[in-house]
């Protein structure tokens, strides 16, 4: 299994995906911080916590839009490497278990998304230091909430991953992922958000204060993830690869 992971990492070595994963959250935090600086008086006039404001400004757009879109891009890339060059035929003639390939690709994809979350957290801390926000730093919120939204973003990851493996055109998982990301703001306002996994990362960070904390997402996301993972694994190990 460790060898599989190394092989998968080698396949991605020349791809620019890590740059995308790393730089994108920094951009969002930069815009959140510059937004905060523009409206400095409005945000700090009532004596609110500066850390809260910087975090809230950044996390709204990050959890609603950027995180699902980046997950879509990264997971589509996982399937694209093999799909593009007729690679499934060659990869599956090797003496490896299909289960190992499926699991190791998913682990690598989810690790890259985790790097994304870490970069987001670090960017917020750096932005706060640059704006000279006073201590105490609310570590619980800045570190805790993004990590929670990582946990509830697993359903999105597994759904896009399964679609990208099963369809040979890279546009299918990309289009589905992005198309399902766009209505999240509207769906999150209704009471049907619980059946729509794309709203889960936003709900986990309580949308920067827009929504209340709801404990339902954790069991829902775990059940959804385990079910989808098992179904995907079963389909992958039994499917006939023709292209």
């Amino acid at each position: 299994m460790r060898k599989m992971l190394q092989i998968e990492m080698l396949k991605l070595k020349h791809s620019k995906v890590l740059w995308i994963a790393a730089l994108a959250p920094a951009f969002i935090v930069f815009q959140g911080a510059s937004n905060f600086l523009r409206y400095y008086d409005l945000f700090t006039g009532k004596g609110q916590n500066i850390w809260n404001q910087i975090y809230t400004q950044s996390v709204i757009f990050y959890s609603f839009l950027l995180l699902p879109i980046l997950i879509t891009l990264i997971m589509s890339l996982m399937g694209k490497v093999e799909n593009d060059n007729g690679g499934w035929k060659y990869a599956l003639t090797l003496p490896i278990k299909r289960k190992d390939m499926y699991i190791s690709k998913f682990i690598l994809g989810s690790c890259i998304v985790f790097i994304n979350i870490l970069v987001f957290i670090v960017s917020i801390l750096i932005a706060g230091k640059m704006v000279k926000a006073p201590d105490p730093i609310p570590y619980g919120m800045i570190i805790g909430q993004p990590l929670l939204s990582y946990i509830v973003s697993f359903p999105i990851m597994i759904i896009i991953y399964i679609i990208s493996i099963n369809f040979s055109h890279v546009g299918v998982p990309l289009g589905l992922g992005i198309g399902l990301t766009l209505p999240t703001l509207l769906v999150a306002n209704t009471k049907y958000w619980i059946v729509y996994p794309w709203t889960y990362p936003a709900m986990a960070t309580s949308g920067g204060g827009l929504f209340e904390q709801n404990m339902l997402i954790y069991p829902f996301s775990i059940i959804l993830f385990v079910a989808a993972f098992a179904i995907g694994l079963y389909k992958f190990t039994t499917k006939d690869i023709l292209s």
Partner: protein
Amino acid sequence: MKVFLSSIKNEFLKQKRGFTWIIVLLLSLGTSFLAFVDVYLRYDYLTKKQNLLNTWEILLLENHLSALWFITFPLAVTTICSLLYYVDYKDGGLKYTLTLPISKNKLYFSKWVTVVIFSIFMIILNISGLILAGKILNFPDSLDIYLFLKYGIYQFISLLGVISLQLWLSSRTNNIIVSLAQGFVGIIASLFLAQSQFIAKLIPYAHILYSIPLKGENNSIAIQGGITFGLLFLFIGMVHFKRKDILD
């Protein structure tokens, strides 16, 4: 001229089996559907809150902002630009296209015209969807066709910058994911950076925010920015494409 027109037809043929038509239809009609559902559910709240605007303007505002058309439209254009190059890459690269008796400049320009035509389709579909939604909801105010005409034209001009910029960025790399990511991150980051009008003039992705034809909106940013950046990046893209050595 005939070769130029046939190369535009060629571009459309290449997209026939692909996703561009699905994107054009789904995203534009989907957004007007979302705006329809939104106004249908929140009709009383919205008319009370925006008592200065008539109902058609409220529908337009909801389409542009709440249904996130101002993000969806540049996103769709980014995807179409990337797909245009992806189809070439998948079928063996630009080698075959470049054997045709057409100059590289005209080839690049024909791709640009293709994206422009797709975006015009999207605007027309979206506005038709909105008008249909308004008719179904039986709005009390009479239909002001000039409002939607202005909306369409402003949007189109403001998006020329994004079209040219994304076409150039997509021509630089073979990897569709990289060009898509450049577009997406650019759109999402610049839409907020552009809250000050001064910075918004410099960012092509933000011009669409200023294309709503209501009172108090500074539409000149949309028009000037769109034309300036549209021509600028078209020129840069053509020069770059002409110099590029197509090896694969």
